[in-house]
């Protein structure tokens, strides 16, 4: 009787998590990466955060209002403490925003924010340089840091041992008790965490980065860890058969695409050739056969949750039309293209590249493919060393314009536009539309602007969009992670519930 009563209460549970990436630094502003943001969501709290359905959830900001085109006022949560014991207030938000503006990695996003104005200890205005439709999107990256704790010893140094890279004070649900870089990090639940509505019962969190995919899966199947990411599509069917294990997938907005360098190879200047390449690649087949259905074939850059997504643009596949276009362009059977792709950055990236080369061979394009480990590949991508280069992009702001700015805008080294435009494609009208969309406050007009860019990119066959991959997690059946994961892969562990019979498995 007493036992059954006890088990109906949420019990404290331990979660052993094995993801494929490492926490590089405890300083949340040293590196903008998935792993660092996952970490920030554990030991810090953002002002607002994305929910699975794409809406924003109040965290340290309880509500907000647009004062004018440039200003958003945030009302902050009261009676919240940092793990150091200091009380959280508007000064910490102002301090954090200022620090973000000085971080090389976050600067690109925070350059649009001019500064802050503290109204009272729990009210703060965030002022943008120009009318800014993305202020809230950007605020998901503001994890207030403890001003009194960090100030004076808060230098951001890449590759350096700084105070902030070794010490941390946040308001988050967890605090670090042990850390061995690259091996494991142990966190415990913050007993004074402000979120009393949370049903989450993960009391202790052990993070073990496991990069080797088979080791990671074996660790789950043998019961040594409870929750893993990612699981390779090829392993999913057999893992689903295992008793006590479940797999869940969520479509991401990270676009995988192929750049066609117009400056390197004159043939790619010809729109007919670019169109032909687009038509010769069968995105749906790649998704079905290589990703085993764990992804969505793409005909454009914006995923369907983005404003720029145009449902009318679909991936096309037409071999005879592709051959016809190549013939018209004078490249019937004599087009040689060099291609490069990474071979260990994403699951199956090498295989996808090989299949694309084979698909292009079908229309008479000879592809000379070279795949490289990521450490070397990104260097080659920067130097644009091949005619066709495969890459992926995740919009940090979850907005189409970020993709356009980096991938298809005319390159400008001063403004940083087109930094990853390895197609060296340039259409002035796109640059104008991007600039307008950055300050357009009317949602409808903004959607039209972004969709027009997407349409132009499609009409010009500027790049070859390939697919949006799914994020695939696997865990023990008792770990109800499906309620707390999202398409950016920042699981909200603070809300994670692990159900009762977990104890029996141990």
């Amino acid at each position, binding site marked *: 009787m007493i036992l059954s009563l006890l088990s109906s209460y949420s019990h404290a549970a331990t979660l052993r998590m094995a993801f494929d990436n490492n926490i590089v630094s405890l300083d949340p502003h040293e590196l903008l990466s998935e792993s660092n943001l996952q970490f920030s969501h554990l030991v810090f709290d953002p002002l607002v955060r994305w929910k699975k359905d794409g809406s924003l959830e109040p965290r340290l900001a309880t509500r907000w209002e647009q004062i004018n085109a440039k200003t958003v006022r945030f009302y902050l949560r009261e009676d919240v403490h940092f793990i150091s014991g200091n009380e959280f207030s508007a000064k910490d938000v102002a301090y954090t925003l200022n620090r973000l503006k000085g971080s090389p990695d976050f600067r690109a996003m925070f350059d649009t924010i001019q500064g802050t104005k503290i109204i009272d200890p729990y009210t703060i205005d965030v002022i943008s340089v120009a009318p800014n439709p993305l202020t809230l999107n950007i605020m998901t990256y503001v994890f207030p840091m403890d001003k009194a704790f960090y100030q004076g010893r808060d230098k951001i140094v*890449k590759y350096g041992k700084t105070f902030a*890279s070794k010490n941390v004070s946040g308001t988050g649900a967890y605090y670090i008790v042990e850390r061995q870089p*690259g091996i494991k990090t142990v966190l415990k639940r913050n007993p004074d965490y402000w979120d009393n509505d949370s049903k989450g019962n993960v009391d202790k969190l052990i993070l073990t980065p496991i990069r080797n995919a088979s*080791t990671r899966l074996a660790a789950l199947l043998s019961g040594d860890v409870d929750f893993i990411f990612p699981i390779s599509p090829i392993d999913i069917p057999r893992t689903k058969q295992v008793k006590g294990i479940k797999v869940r997938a969520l479509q991401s907005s990270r676009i995988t695409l192929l750049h066609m360098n117009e400056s390197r190879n004159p043939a790619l200047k010809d729109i007919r050739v670019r169109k032909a390449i687009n038509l010769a690649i069968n995105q749906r087949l790649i998704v079905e056969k290589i990703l085993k259905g764990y992804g969505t074939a793409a005909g454009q850059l914006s995923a369907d949750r983005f404003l720029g997504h145009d449902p009318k643009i679909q991936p096309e596949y037409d071999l005879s039309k592709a051959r016809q276009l190549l013939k018209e362009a004078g490249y019937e059977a004599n087009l040689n293209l060099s291609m490069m792709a990474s071979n260990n950055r994403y699951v199956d990236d090498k295989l996808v590249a090989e299949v694309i080369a084979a698909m292009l061979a079908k229309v008479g394009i000879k592809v000379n493919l070279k795949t490289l*480990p990521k450490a070397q590949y990104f260097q080659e991508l920067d130097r644009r060393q091949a005619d066709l280069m495969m890459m992926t992009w995740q919009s940090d702001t979850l907005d189409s314009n970020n993709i356009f700015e980096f991938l298809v805008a005319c390159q400008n080294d001063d403004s940083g536009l087109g930094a990853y435009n390895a197609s060296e494609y340039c259409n002035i009208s796109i640059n104008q539309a991007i600039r307008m969309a950055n300050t357009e406050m009317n949602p409808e007009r903004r959607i039209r602007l972004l969709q027009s860019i997407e349409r132009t990119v499609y009409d010009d066959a500027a790049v070859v969009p390939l697919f949006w991959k799914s994020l695939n997690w696997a865990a023990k059946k008792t770990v109800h992670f499906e309620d707390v994961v999202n398409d950016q892969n920042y699981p909200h562990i603070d809300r994670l519930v692990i159900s009762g019979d977990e104890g029996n498995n141990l």
Partner: protein
Amino acid sequence: MLRFLLRRFIQAIVVMVVISIISFSIQSQIGDPTQQLLSPTVNQSERDALRETLGLNDPVMVQYWHFLQGVAKGDFGVSYFHKEPALALILDKLPATLELIVCTLVIMILVATPCGVVAAIHPRSLFSRAVMLISSLGISVPIFIIAILMVYVFSIQMQLMPSFGRGETVHVFGSWETGLLSKDGLAHLALPVFSLSIAIMPIFIRLIRAEMLEVLESDYIRFAWSKGLSSARIYFIHALKNTALPIITIGGIQTGTLIAYTIFTESIFQWPGMGFLFIEAVGRADTPLISAYLIVVGCIFVLTNTVVDLIYGLANPTVKFESHTL
């Protein structure tokens, strides 16, 4: 003897200089370390500034000179990822790797020696044939397949053994944490050690068997039999002792191979040793750590070879040190 050691010392320095030159000359091929620790949205001028502060824009010869200056002071550079001195990091992980190697060697001696001896005494028995068959399998199947198979059978199917990591460790002294003193640590040690043993043992079983077969045919063994000595004494004292020299030689070489094998084993079992550290460093283009690892391993090679040569002298007093150096 002293002259021998001095010569070996000079040899070690030459080896390490050569390794450091090689590790430096391949650095530009490993990739750009700054790429790893910068978000893709960082602009080019920031990237250049970081490369400049890390000294990556200097010519390779200048970088090498700076490196040598550091090494002279015992400074092998600071790992980009760990933000700690590279040498200290490696020495920190050394105990974990040494435990793997030592346990493997102990198991090898305890299993390979009797197996090899028995296989030589009764070459046609069922046991000998089975040993020979298994050892051929061990030689021909790559270690990572053995390791994955072990994980599949013992961790996933039978759920007997942990599949990765080092488990609970006990602090001994300094930075030495051992897994040998806790039940959990020993359980974690089992699979990696068995995988390594299976990979490395067959060659010893075969070697001991072959050497024994030859020695058992020699005149002094026949003489021992006719003297009426006990068979245990003949086999294990008279015969086995004389098979020692080639086994010691191969043993020295295999210890080196064992270090190479630990890279595979450690990455499959996520064993937090030097090999795992190294393979991660390669993935991150963490060049100071890569150079330091290669130099430390080079040093271990020279050291083991020196020890082997010293043991040589103990096993066979007729060997003179001066006669077989360099």
